[in-house]
């Protein structure tokens, strides 16, 4: 399948017509928040008022993606989000506890539903077509891609809008922090991989893609394959999964120009990446992406955006140029539960 267009709201300057990450936005602290655009340019101001932050991020990035492709009625809309609309969930839950189940209003409950972003996009477009939402933790975005891939293969759709969205809220950051997920003390995203300490930095984002079955002659990249695997027992099993993923495409690591890997700065989390860098990825250039967007369950949507930009432009932000970049392998795992592989080619 082909990536016709993309829309990405992230903690970096990724939205709209901007140079490709010519500078890294530095965030101090263990929480990277999205840089949000002026939504009035993208969404009807009357509707914006009612939308929570993640809904605005989702809807705006989806709309920008469609506008870029000149598509107004996609054949399918598929979203992936591990947490859904956390802010609305937190608001309704807090009020329910505070007010002892009395005097509650429906807005935050209505918008807490996990399919709200996909539904809002359909509503704005008056799009009656296939609409689905995956809430499958660290594989939510990959499930959405597989759903899209099957729809394109089945001939049920010619183009599919797919997005990965997750937000951090004060409540979720505080609770996830208590699980020890995030680094303590002063930390900056640009030093993420140098601290060798426990924990990572929290991230968020919303990245949408318009995927098509046929090439248009003006595509960003070709997404050759996507695969997930669940709770591998050993590093060797991960290695086997990567090899068989490439083999299924008739490829080996020698065909890969660049690997984009999901190191998040937590020593234990990153061990599998270091293992692969010393074995299967040994002779390949490996770059990282979570210093840009932070760690969150659908960060692979940011990684796909990053990979697509690199394969399109042959520019590696902040890195030595590698030419030509023909194929990029993206490998990520989220808390060693869901591991994912994506393969992209230049068009």
């Amino acid at each position, binding site marked *: 399948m082909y990536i016709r267009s993309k829309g990405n709201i992230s903690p970096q300057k990724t939205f709209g017509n901007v140079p490709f990450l010519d500078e890294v936005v530095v965030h101090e602290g263990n929480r990277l928040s999205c840089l949000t655009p002026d939504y009035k340019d993208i969404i009807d101001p009357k509707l914006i008022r009612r939308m929570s932050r993640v809904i605005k991020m989702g809807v705006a990035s989806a709309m920008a993606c469609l506008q870029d492709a000149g598509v107004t009625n996609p054949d399918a809309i598929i979203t992936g989000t591990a947490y859904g609309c956390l802010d609305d969930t937190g608001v309704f839950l807090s009020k329910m506890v505070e007010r002892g189940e009395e005097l509650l209003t429906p807005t935050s409950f*209505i918008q807490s539903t996990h399919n709200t972003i996909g539904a809002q996009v359909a509503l704005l477009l008056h799009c009656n077509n296939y609409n*689905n939402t995956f809430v499958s933790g660290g594989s939510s975005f990959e499930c959405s891609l597989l759903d899209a891939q099957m729809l394109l293969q089945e001939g049920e759709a010619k183009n599919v809008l797919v997005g990965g969205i997750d937000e951090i809220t004060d409540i979720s950051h505080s609770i996830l922090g208590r699980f020890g997920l995030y680094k303590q003390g002063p930390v900056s995203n640009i030093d993420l991989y140098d601290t060798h300490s426990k924990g990572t930095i929290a991230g968020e984002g919303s990245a949408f893609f318009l995927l098509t079955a046929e090439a248009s002659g003006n595509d960003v990249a070709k997404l050759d394959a996507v695969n997930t695997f669940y709770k591998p027992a050993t590093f060797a099993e991960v290695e086997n999964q990567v090899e068989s993923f490439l083999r299924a495409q008739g490829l080996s690591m020698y065909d890969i120009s660049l690997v984009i890997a999901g190191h998040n700065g937590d020593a234990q989390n990153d061990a599998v990446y270091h293992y692969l860098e010393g074995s299967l990825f040994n002779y390949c250039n490996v770059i990282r992406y979570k210093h840009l967007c932070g760690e969150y369950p659908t960060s692979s949507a940011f990684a796909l955006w990053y990979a697509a930009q690199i394969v399109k432009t042959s520019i590696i932000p902040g890195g030595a140029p590698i030419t030509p970049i023909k194929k990029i392998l993206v490998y990520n795992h989220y808390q060693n539960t869901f591991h994912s592989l994506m393969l992209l080619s230049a068009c």
Partner: protein
Amino acid sequence: MSKTVFVAGVGVISGIGSNTAECLNALENSRAGIDKIKYLQTIHQDTFPVAEVKLSNDELAQLSGFGPGISRTAMLSLIAAREAKNDAGIENFGSLRTGFISANTVGGMDKTEEFFVQFMANPAKGKLRNVVNHECGKVTQLVADELGIKNYVSTISTACSSSANAIMYGARLIKNNILDVVIAGGTDALTRFTLNGFNTLMILDNQYCQPFDANRRGLNLGEGAGYITLVSERIAATLPKQLYCMLSGYCNANDAYHQTASSPDGTGSFMAMEGALKMAGLKPQDIGYINLHGTGTQNNDNSEGTAIKRLFNPHFPKMSSTKSFTGHTLGASAGIEAVFSALSAQQGFIYPNLRFETQIAEHPFAPETSFTQQADLNHVLSNSFGFGGNCSSLIFSKLQA
């Protein structure tokens, strides 16, 4: 590549029973599971009747085999999913490409509610074990690990149509030759979050609900889980036991009308039903029974009825809402109703629509009021429509002898 996907096993737990046999017995004997709230701790205990699974958390822990303290959503899921797995009796299950596609809308919210009471008072307080499985996806993982399913584990959440989409996705994973066997469906436990949420929408009935009745007042919430075991043609041929039926059609469409309300002309429901018929290669008159979404709200039953009128006029199949027994189980409803529909396609069961009294004036049809068995029933349509305009329909077809 498997052209046809078969239903080889079923499993269900709901307000009318803890397994398929118990639920079927209640359906045959018009015994609703709706009652005064007994297990959920809420100030609305005496206000809104609901269809709770009639087991405490401790009893569910014992029945499921989970340790204490696990979300009720996961316990319900494991009980029904394990029944669906065992019912299929696939001997070499471990050596096949297996998937667990489970839908839910609340995840571990029942436990998160406990956590929040202490957390709100002091952000350093509240037991973390009560929020560790908050995410919808975590509930699915807990159950997949118990079932020994590893190849593909995924969670869908599209409000009240969630588990219909899980079943569709599972069937497509088989048809695309990615998996051999999929246990697909959904689960949802009753929580204060959902009860209060639906109360703010003012669509809860404070009496027993009356779906598709002219004088209906709203819905009763329920809880439970329902799964079907889907297998490819190749696996179906190896199974010693009789298959239930095949999943011959499905379609997902969006109403694109309003975040919570359905369009007056039932655009999304019409498209979902029409699309499912087209896929199955059937005409409207081929459908022998419709298991309605039939929540009992003014809005849903109008919209769904209008769509049925547009699509089926003048050949109206028999129809009923089994939510008059189980309440509206949200993310689980399409899974539970898939089990009932699969049994219907296999054995010709038509379930009664309890408490029906007065036909809706605009509808030239009325739901069935008694349990019957029809020898000539070949195709069953199951509807599930939800918030966000998500509409999905499934068709289950009898296997020709």
